[in-house]
């Protein structure tokens, strides 16, 4: 039986490396492994460039990106080039999230990449009143059915899933983490929501929430990079707590508003740019979207290192209105 070549020194590509998760992952891979890392992003890398790190400023939709795959022949790819910002137009999100991912997956196949890890999100299940109390990976994704404007998130997830089954020689790991928080995270629905103080909440509703520390997401990605790991995994943090407890722990004041008024208010504020949360976010203030994170624990040995308290402590304070 022939052994595979030493994988520990093979190059790893991170797309969207300038984002919060990308930066933390890069730091850890450089500090704790021997992999050379190639970072791709169309934003510029403004931090210092340590050894074994090669940054290429490329747009995934142009030629330069494919050339990286052609010449470097990466062993593994972590695909993080993804926009979730709902103020970006739907067409543009589709181009980046769906078409961009499609191209990366094609290159992986064409240039002999062994492993690709992709980050979806737990919110693809949607916050619906008929959700089970713990959603497992096999549940249908209801987000797209309820909100056409978010179909790119669901389409991205389905795209990864179909590649997983059609191209068995590429090991695809699709992670669906819950709300990611941490000192480096400056995006996502929960982050934007907690930027407000006071925040608005739906009167009489107090859904259960799940948070995960950025470092625990990195742990899940690194477990996904291990040989033979493949599949779809929910990634949850240390526990569940109601929205009210999150707000209390963070010292945010909350103004309860009846939910029909809240939805109208948010739609108007989003339209004029005052709110960065689209109307579907109101459903996440009413209904839970709690996932069952046991599969990745059982199959890959994932264990969150940050308990609820430390995860909450990692959320940056809301900016003062005076600043």
């Amino acid at each position, binding site marked *: 039986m022939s052994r595979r070549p030493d994988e520990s020194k093979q190059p790893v590509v991170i797309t969207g490396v300038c984002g919060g998760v990308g930066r933390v992952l890069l730091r850890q891979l450089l500090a704790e492994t021997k992999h050379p890392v190639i970072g791709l992003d169309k934003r510029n890398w403004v931090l210092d460039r340590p050894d074994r790190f090669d940054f290429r400023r490329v747009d995934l939709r142009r030629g330069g990106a494919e050339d990286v795959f052609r010449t470097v022949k990466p062993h593994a790819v972590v695909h993080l080039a993804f926009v979730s910002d709902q103020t970006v137009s739907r067409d543009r999100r589709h181009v980046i999230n769906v078409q961009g991912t499609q191209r990366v997956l094609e290159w992986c196949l064409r240039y002999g990449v062994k492993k690709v890890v992709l980050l979806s999100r737990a919110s693809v299940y949607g916050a619906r009143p008929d959700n*089970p109390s713990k959603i497992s990976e096999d549940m249908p994704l209801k987000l797209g059915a309820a909100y056409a404007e978010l179909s790119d998130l669901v389409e991205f997830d389905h795209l990864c899933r179909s590649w997983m089954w059609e191209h068995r020689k590429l090991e695809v790991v699709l992670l669906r983490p819950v709300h990611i928080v941490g000192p480096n995270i400056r995006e996502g629905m929960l982050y934007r929501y907690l930027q407000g103080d006071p925040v608005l909440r739906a009167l009489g*509703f107090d859904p*259960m929430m799940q948070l995960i520390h950025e470092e625990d997401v990195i742990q899940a990605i690194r477990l996904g990079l291990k040989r033979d790991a493949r599949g779809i995994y929910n990634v949850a943090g240390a526990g*569940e707590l109601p929205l009210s407890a999150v707000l209390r722990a963070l010292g945010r004041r909350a103004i309860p508003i009846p939910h029909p008024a809240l939805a109208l208010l948010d739609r108007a504020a989003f339209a004029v740019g005052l709110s960065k949360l689209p109307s579907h976010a109101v459903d996440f203030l*009413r209904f839970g979207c709690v996932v069952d994170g046991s599969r990745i624990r059982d199959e890959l040995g994932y264990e969150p290192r940050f308990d609820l308290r430390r995860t909450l402590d990692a959320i940056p304070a809301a900016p003062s209105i005076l600043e």
Partner: protein
Amino acid sequence: MGSIWDRLDRFLLDDEMRSILERLPNKVNEFGYDAWGLHPPTAVRSLAITRFLYRHYFRTDANGMENIPSGRVLLIANHGGQFPMDGLVAGTGAVLEADPPRIVRAMVERWVPTLPFASTLFARCGQIVGNREDCRKLLENEECVLVFPEGVRGSGKTIWHRYELQRFGLGFMRLALETGAPIVPVGIVGSEESIPSVYDMKAIARLIGAPYLPVPATLPLLGPLSFLPLPTKFVLHFGEPMHFEGDPDASDAEVSDKVEQVKDAMRDLIERGLKKRRGIFAR
């Protein structure tokens, strides 16, 4: 201002409820919640209110509470009386009279989570919206799950069919086989006369999306008040735990045989309850 709330809190969380709160076996995280949203201090304070209904309004006579084991268990009960007073009384009984006290986890209707306040209160008291998968996870978490296998076939039936067990779903038995949870059959007497319905307006119910729509016998007399449960005497009988073994994916026919055993045990318990009760409105 503060003192009124303190006094209310002392009134709800009296010595009995405080001792129950301390003895509850439920596993919660460092913020006091479990994954399904149960918050024992809130649940116990709410139960202080249902305790009044349990003791003084329904004058409940609970028997066989020692049959509720301490670990995972499925309570299987008969269902009737339009509104789930049976669930409320059995659940209150399991907290007040079982040792250790058990918070009963029941499945609520799927529209409950769309209601403000009620959705939150139900969740904090341990009631969940869920499917069989959720039930399995609850049992694996050593919880006490209440199932009415008759579903709306039981609760929606008219007064003429009281205490006649309707067709049982089989899901609970498959769950018991899968998780190894013992089944405690429960016979509830009193609920099935609490809103005596003489007719089920199925057509109108379908129109408004309700599973059934009762016409209470007291409607001409009481008007809308007839939809409030009458102060019937409740007699609960919790039977001895039944242990089943076998393939959880066996055919419906094989599982039905086991379900029949539970149904027979429940018939006996209901019979005992009816015999023990001196009258529908007895003291």
